[in-house]
């Protein structure tokens, strides 16, 4: 367990910001691809129909910071359990299921989430595996040491355009988190069709990519995410996330990538 042994220097922080999960928003391709952190040996090496016993699929991606870098807002202990046990178990479950399924094996993470969502009737592979792996990979990236504060430049402009003001957005996000019944996630999402940012809350493991929208940030509202540090004080957990953990750097990078797929407006041409 444990990420790299780097200290978060300025340069290091920029590097961390670049190591983001580059999610694939193109249409699902059915060809075999190498995953971002897994090896595929199935059926290739020996010319036999099925490979021998050692095959690897998805690996547990480490967060782009050390497990104690988010103290005191999210404790090392919480991350050790949340990442080291929960997230690891999801990855193990996913790999176990992929081992049994010839169809799903070979999909990228995005394809897996969409396929196992099954148009609203999630298959077992969705809940405890694919979607939760995706959601948690994204969650670690949605946070950073020294997070919080506000976005700037284009993302701030877009937020102000779509929510009125950053304060309005923050209120909506917090309200969504606190009004969620049961387990689920809260997202800042770029809607592909409507070409705007919205706050969305989803139940259990549901992820906005199943509706073809583009996540910018997420927040885990399952009790396991905050219970060790905050017990039942959801409000304090959410406001701490907004004040000290949320990574607007990550959000800006997700947004920049999203703009390659969603045209958010005409370029401003100067009138001669």
């Amino acid at each position, binding site marked *: 367990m444990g990420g790299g042994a780097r200290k978060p220097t300025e340069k290091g922080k920029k590097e961390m910001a670049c190591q983001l999960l580059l999610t694939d928003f193109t249409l699902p391709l059915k060809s075999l691809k190498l995953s971002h952190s897994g090896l595929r040996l199935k059926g290739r090496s020996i010319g036999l129909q099925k490979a021998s016993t050692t095959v690897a699929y998805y690996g547990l991606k480490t967060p782009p910071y050390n497990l104690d870098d988010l103290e005191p807002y999210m404790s090392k202990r919480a991350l050790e359990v949340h990442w080291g046990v929960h997230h690891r178990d999801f990855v193990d479950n996913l790999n176990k299921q992929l081992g049994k399924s010839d169809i799903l094996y070979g999909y990228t993470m995005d394809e897996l989430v969409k396929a196992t969502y099954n148009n609203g009737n999630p298959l077992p592979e969705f809940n405890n595996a694919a979607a939760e792996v995706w959601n948690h990979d994204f969650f670690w990236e949605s946070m950073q040491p020294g997070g919080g504060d506000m976005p700037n430049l284009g993302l701030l402009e877009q937020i102000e355009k779509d929510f009125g003001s950053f304060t309005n957005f923050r209120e909506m996000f917090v309200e969504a988190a606190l009004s969620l019944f049961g387990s689920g996630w809260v997202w800042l999402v770029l809607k592909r069709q409507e070409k705007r940012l919205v706050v969305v809350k989803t139940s259990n*493991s549901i992820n906005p990519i199943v509706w073809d929208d583009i996540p910018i940030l997420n927040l885990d509202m399952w009790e396991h995410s905050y219970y060790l540090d905050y017990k039942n004080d959801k409000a304090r957990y959410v406001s701490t996330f907004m004040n000290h953990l949320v990574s607007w750097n990550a959000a800006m990078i997700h947004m920049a990538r999203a703009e390659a797929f969603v045209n958010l407006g005409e370029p401003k041409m100067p009138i001669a």
Partner: protein
Amino acid sequence: MALRSSITRRTLTLGLNSTMLLPLSRSLQTFSLPDLPYDYGALEPAISGEIMQLHHQKHHQTYITNYNKALEQLHEAIQKGDSSTVVKLQSAIKFNGGGHVNHSIFWKNLAPIREGGGEPPKASLGWAIDTHFGSLESLIQKMNAEGAGLQGSGWVWVGVNKELKKLVIETTPNQDPLVTKGPHLVPLLGIDVWEHAYYLQYKNVRPDYLKNIWKVINWKYASEVYEKECA
């Protein structure tokens, strides 16, 4: 500690004099946290005292507080004839009211070992379990499987269909009471599988929590309810 069910009454009367047809003033009951019939630490080591205290004083209390708030808003909306608010409040009432109902049953479903917790059911309920499930072990196994398989938050129940006089095992999501799975279903035994019910002690190993909770299950209460419904 004796179990005092404390439902206090607070009357809200209408002070309006108007020629409009007004509904009769209704008194608005508010609810308060029932006492536990045992100490917080009495269920150890199956359930830790820390969890029991948080679960009772914080979680259950929050459901009650929000339930009362929602009821008050509902009362106002009904008085004003504001249908869209009445409908809008339904989900908050179902969630918080359900939370109150479910947890009130849950505290009675548990008992310290020295007060009979974990003792297998006898008499009519014991016989019904053997008839329907084959054995108590088989019921426990099925409950544990359903409980472990529940996605997200919810409850797993042993209930009785009072029309058909049959035992059932059901799960409900979030805080939905058992009756949402069937109008004739009466809960005998509910196990809370929300993470807050076991996380501090068992982390994500819900199956261990389910295995251990049977040591403090109060079958006497379940038998009483069963006999009342199926006398």
